[in-house]
C-alpha cells in the first residue's frame, strides 16, 4: 500500500516538475533568453571609414591613413581580485614595452578607469605605432597572450596648408547612433568634421557607424564578439577645386593678408578658394592641440579667419560697375558726360578724385577706366539710393551666395532702413555718394565679388558650387544687354588702358576687370584694402576672379599684378 502511494507520489511529483519546467523552459524561454542577453551582451558602436576629398582632377586633398594600435584584452588577465588583475596587466604591459621599445601611453589612472568603465573593450596601450615597433611586437606576439593590434584611421591632408580654410579639419566624437536606437553600452569614437568642408559635408563623408555585440561574463570581461552591422564607409567628396589653380593662387597670396576666389561664372564651379595667412592641416592631426589652437587664435593676423567667404570688406572702386549698371537701368544714357574737377562737393563734404586736378570730361567707359570718383558720385545722385541698392542686390551683394559651405557671409548693402536700425539716424546724400564709390557702409566678401565679376561678364548670376557634379543654379541679371555691354567695355578698358594695364599684359586672352582701393580705419590705423576683380576671356568668360589684399598700396599696383600672374597661369600654357 505505502509502496503504491509512494509510486503515485513519485509520478505526480515528476509531473509537477515537468509542467513547471515547461513553464520556465518553453513558455518563459523568450523572456529568460532576453534577460540572459541583456546581462551578458554589450552593444558596441563601430566607426565607419571616412570618405576622402578630391579636387576636380581626382587629386587627394583629404584622406585616411591606417593607424595601428597595440591593444590589450583585459579578459586574458582576469584574476581573483581587481588588484591582482590590475597588477597582472601592468606587469604584462612592461613586459611588452621592453620589446616594442616605447613606453606605454597609459597612466595608472587611465588603466584603472578602463577597468572600471569599459572592461569589455580592448584597451589601446600604444597608439599609432610605427613599422619598427609593430614588427618587433609581431615577432614576439605569440609570447604575449592577451595583446593584439587594432586598425584605426587617422586623417591626412597630403597638401598640408593648401586650401586649409576650405577643407577644414576633424575631431573625434562618439559614433552617432541612428535615431530611435537604444543606447550603446560602449561607443567607439569616430572622426567628425569640425570646420570647412569636413564640417559642411560631414554626414556625407562620415558614413554610417556599425554595431557589434560583445559577450561579457558576470564580472564584465569580454569573451567574444559578433558583428551585428558592418559600418558603411563614408562617400568620397569630389570638388570643383582645381589644385593647380589653388596652388597658383596661394603662391600669390603668400606673405599677404587677404583672400582670393576663382570660379567659373558659367556654372558657379569654384576653382580656387584661398585665404591668407593659413595654417598647416597636418598639424591638426591626430588632434588639434591646445597650444596650436591658442597660438593660431592669438595671432594678430587671424589665420583661423576664412577671409574668402567670411571676410567683410568695403569693395571700394570695384563697386563702380554696380553704380554704373544702376544708373543705366534708371535710363541715364552711357553717353552722359561729366566734368571731373578732382573733387565732388555735397554741402560741407568734399569727395576727392584719385587724380588731384581732375580727369576733365568723362563718359561712362572712360570713368570706369580712370576710376573717376566724381563721375560716379554724380551718377549716383542721378540714379538715387534705391537704384543702387537694388542693382547691388541683383548682383548678389548683401545676401548669402548659397555656396555649399558653412561660412557664407551675407555682407551689407546699406539703405535708409538699415542705417536707422544700425546707427539710429537717417540716410544722407553723403552716404549715397560714398556708396557710389564702394565706401560708405558696404561690406562684401571676395566670394561675392568673384561671383559679381562673373555675372557682369556672363549676364547671369551663378550660385557658387564646391562639390562637383551638382546642377548649376543660374539667375539672369535684370539689366539690359546693352547696359551690360557698356560696363564690360569700361572694364575691358581698365585692363587695356587703365589701372590694370601692366598687370594684365601678356595674358593670352582679353581680360576685363576693375581695381579697387578701399580706405578703412582712421588715424594711425588708416589703411588700404586693395581689390582686383576680373573675368576672362572678356568676350566669353570662363574664369571670374576676385582678390583682396589687406594693407596694400593700391588695387592697381598691389592686387592686379597678382591676379595677372594667376590669369597667365590659367590661360598661358
Amino acid at each position: 500500500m505505502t509502496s503504491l502511494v509512494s509510486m503515485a507520489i513519485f509520478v505526480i511529483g515528476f509531473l509537477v516538475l515537468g509542467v513547471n519546467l515547461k513553464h520556465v523552459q518553453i513558455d518563459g524561454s523568450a523572456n529568460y533568453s532576453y534577460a540572459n542577453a541583456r546581462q551578458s551582451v554589450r552593444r558596441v558602436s563601430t566607426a565607419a571609414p571616412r570618405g576622402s576629398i578630391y579636387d576636380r582632377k581626382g587629386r587627394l586633398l583629404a584622406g585616411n591613413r591606417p593607424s595601428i594600435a597595440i591593444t590589450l584584452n583585459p579578459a586574458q588577465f582576469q584574476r581573483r581580485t581587481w588588484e591582482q588583475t590590475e597588477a597582472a596587466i601592468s606587469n604584462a604591459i612592461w613586459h611588452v614595452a621592453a620589446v616594442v621599445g616605447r613606453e606605454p601611453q597609459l597612466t595608472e589612472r587611465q588603466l584603472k578607469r578602463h577597468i572600471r568603465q569599459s572592461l569589455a573593450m580592448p584597451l589601446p596601450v600604444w597608439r599609432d605605432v610605427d613599422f619598427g615597433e609593430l614588427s618587433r611586437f609581431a615577432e614576439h606576439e605569440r609570447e604575449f597572450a592577451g595583446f593584439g593590434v587594432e586598425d584605426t584611421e587617422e586623417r591626412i591632408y597630403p597638401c598640408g596648408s593648401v586650401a586649409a580654410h576650405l577643407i577644414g579639419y576633424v575631431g573625434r566624437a562618439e559614433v552617432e547612433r541612428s535615431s530611435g536606437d537604444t543606447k550603446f553600452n560602449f561607443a567607439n569614437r569616430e572622426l567628425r568634421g569640425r570646420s570647412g568642408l569636413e564640417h559642411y559635408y560631414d554626414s556625407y563623408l562620415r558614413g554610417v557607424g556599425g554595431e557589434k555585440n560583445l559577450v561579457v561574463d558576470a564580472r564584465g570581461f569580454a569573451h567574444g564578439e559578433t558583428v551585428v552591422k558592418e559600418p558603411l564607409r563614408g562617400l568620397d567628396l569630389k570638388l570643383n577645386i582645381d589644385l593647380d589653380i589653388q596652388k597658383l593662387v596661394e603662391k600669390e597670396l603668400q606673405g599677404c593678408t587677404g583672400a582670393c576666389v576663382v570660379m567659373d561664372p558659367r556654372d558657379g564651379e569654384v576653382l580656387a578658394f584661398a585665404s591668407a595667412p593659413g595654417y598647416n592641416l597636418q598639424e591638426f592631426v591626430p588632434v588639434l592641440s591646445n597650444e596650436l589652437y591658442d597660438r593660431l587664435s592669438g595671432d594678430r593676423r587671424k589665420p583661423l579667419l576664412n577671409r574668402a567667404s567670411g571676410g567683410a570688406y568695403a569693395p571700394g572702386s570695384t563697386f563702380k560697375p554696380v553704380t554704373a549698371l544702376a544708373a543705366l537701368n534708371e535710363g541715364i544714357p552711357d553717353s552722359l558726360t561729366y566734368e571731373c574737377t578732382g573733387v565732388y562737393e555735397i554741402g560741407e563734404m568734399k569727395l576727392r578724385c584719385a587724380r588731384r586736378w581732375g580727369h576733365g570730361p568723362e563718359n561712362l567707359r572712360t570713368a570706369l577706366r580712370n576710376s573717376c570718383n566724381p563721375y560716379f558720385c554724380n551718377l549716383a545722385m542721378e540714379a538715387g539710393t534705391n537704384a543702387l541698392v537694388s542693382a547691388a542686390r541683383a548682383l548678389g551683394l548683401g545676401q548669402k551666395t548659397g555656396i555649399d559651405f558653412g561660412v557664407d557671409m551675407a555682407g551689407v548693402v546699406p539703405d535708409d532702413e538699415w542705417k536707422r536700425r544700425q546707427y539710429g539716424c537717417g540716410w544722407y546724400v553723403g552716404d549715397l555718394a560714398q556708396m557710389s564709390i564702394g565706401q560708405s557702409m558696404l561690406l562684401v566678401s571676395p566670394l561675392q565679388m568673384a561671383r559679381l565679376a562673373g555675372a557682369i561678364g556672363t549676364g547671369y548670376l551663378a550660385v557658387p558650387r564646391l562639390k562637383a557634379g551638382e546642377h548649376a543654379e543660374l539667375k539672369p541679371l535684370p539689366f539690359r544687354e546693352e547696359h551690360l555691354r557698356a560696363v564690360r567695355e569700361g572694364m575691358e578698358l581698365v585692363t587695356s588702358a587703365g589701372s590694370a594695364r601692366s598687370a594684365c599684359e601678356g595674358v593670352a586672352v582679353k581680360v576685363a576687370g576693375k581695381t579697387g582701393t578701399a580706405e578703412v580705419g582712421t588715424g594711425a590705423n588708416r589703411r588700404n584694402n586693395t581689390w582686383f576683380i576680373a573675368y576672362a576671356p572678356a568676350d566669353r568668360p570662363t574664369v571670374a576672379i576676385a582678390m583682396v589684399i589687406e594693407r596694400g598700396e593700391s588695387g592697381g599696383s598691389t592686387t592686379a599684378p597678382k591676379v595677372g600672374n594667376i590669369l597667365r597661369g590659367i590661360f598661358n600654357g
Partner: protein
Amino acid sequence: MARYLRNFNYLMFLAMVALIAIGTVAIWSAGNARAEAVFHGMWKQTLTTAVFGLAVYLALSAIDYRKVLDYASPFAYALALTMLVAVLVFGSKIYGGRRWLWFFQPSEVSKLCIIMFLASFARPLRQLGFAGFLLTGAIVGVPLLLILAEPDLGTALTLVPAVIAMMFAARIWRKGLLAVLAVIAAVATAVLCLVYEAEKPGVPPARRAAVLQWVPLKEHQVKRVKVFLFPEEDILGAGYNLRQAKISIGSGGFSGKGIGKGETNHLKYLPQAISMNDFIFCVYAEETGFVGSLALLALFGMLVVPGAWVAFTSNDERGECLAIGVSMLVFAHVYINIAMSIGLLPITGLPLPFISSGRTFLVTVMAALGMVQSVSIHREEAK
C-alpha cells in the same frame, strides 16, 4: 547466480548508469567554467568515484540485505552519531558550516545509516505502538538535530519524507502519523504566511521583527523564504541566485544550447560556488533544454518507481522499509533540488543525485541503491 540475474532490476541499474554518465558530462561542463584549474578535472574524479561506487553497489546487491541489516545497522547508526559529533568538533569550516570531516560529509552517510537502522527495527517499533512512534522520533531526531547544528538544513529535510514513508510502510502508529503530517503541513503554511506578512512591501521594521519572532528560522533562512515568496524583488542581492538559476534553465529553451555551451554558466553569471553542486541542474538544463530536463526526470522516474516496486514486491517488511526509504530519499533530493532551481521551493543546499559533484553522496546513494537491488534479488520467491 541464476537468481541474481533473474531478480536483478535492470531498469533501475541502467537508469543509474545513464544518470552517472549525464552527471559526468554536467560536472565536466560546470567544472570547465570555473577559473580554478582544480575543477577542470573534477569529472575524472567523479567517474573514478562512480567506479568505486559501482563496486560497492554490486557487492551490496549480491549480499543478502537482511544480513547487512542484522550485522551492520547498529554499528552504522552508532558510527553515524559518532561522525556527526566529530564533524561538529573537528570538521573544517566551509561556507559558514561544519560539514566536512577529512574527505567526506558525515551527514550524507548518516542518512543511509538512519534508514538502515529504522528498517532493521521496523517490526519491534511497530509493536510498541505510540511508544514506537516516540522511539522512532528519538532515533531520527538525535542525528537530525546534529545535522541541523552543522547546519545542513537541506540534507535534514530530505530525511523527513523518507522516514515518514518508512513509518507508513512499517505501520508505526499509523493513526497518529496522518495527524503529524497535518501538523507539519500546518507549521510550514504558518511559517510561509508569517514570513509573507513580515516581508511584504511596506512593512515597518518594528512590525517585521514582531512577526518574525514567531518564525523558527534563522535570518538567512527567512531571506530565502522571502526570495521564494517575492522572487523579483532583490534580483541583485538575495534573489540573485534564484534569478540566475531561472535564466539558465529558461534560456535553455526547448533543445538547449549544446553540451559545454551554457552561457550563463561559462560566463559565470550562475553562482560559481554552487554551480557544480546545488545548482548543477541549471547547468544541465541550459545546455540540453526542456528535452534534456524531461529525459532527466524520466531517468529519475526509472530509478525511484522501480524502487517502490521492489518495496511492493518484497514480502519482507524490512526490505520494504529499506526500499521505500531509499527511494523516497532519492526522490526528495531530486524533487527539492529541481523545484528550488525553478522557484517552486525556497532555496536550500542539497545535491542532485548522480549529477552533482559530491562524492560522499554519490557513494552513499549507490550503496543505498545497491541494497535496494539486494532487496529485489533476495525476495522470497513463490515456490
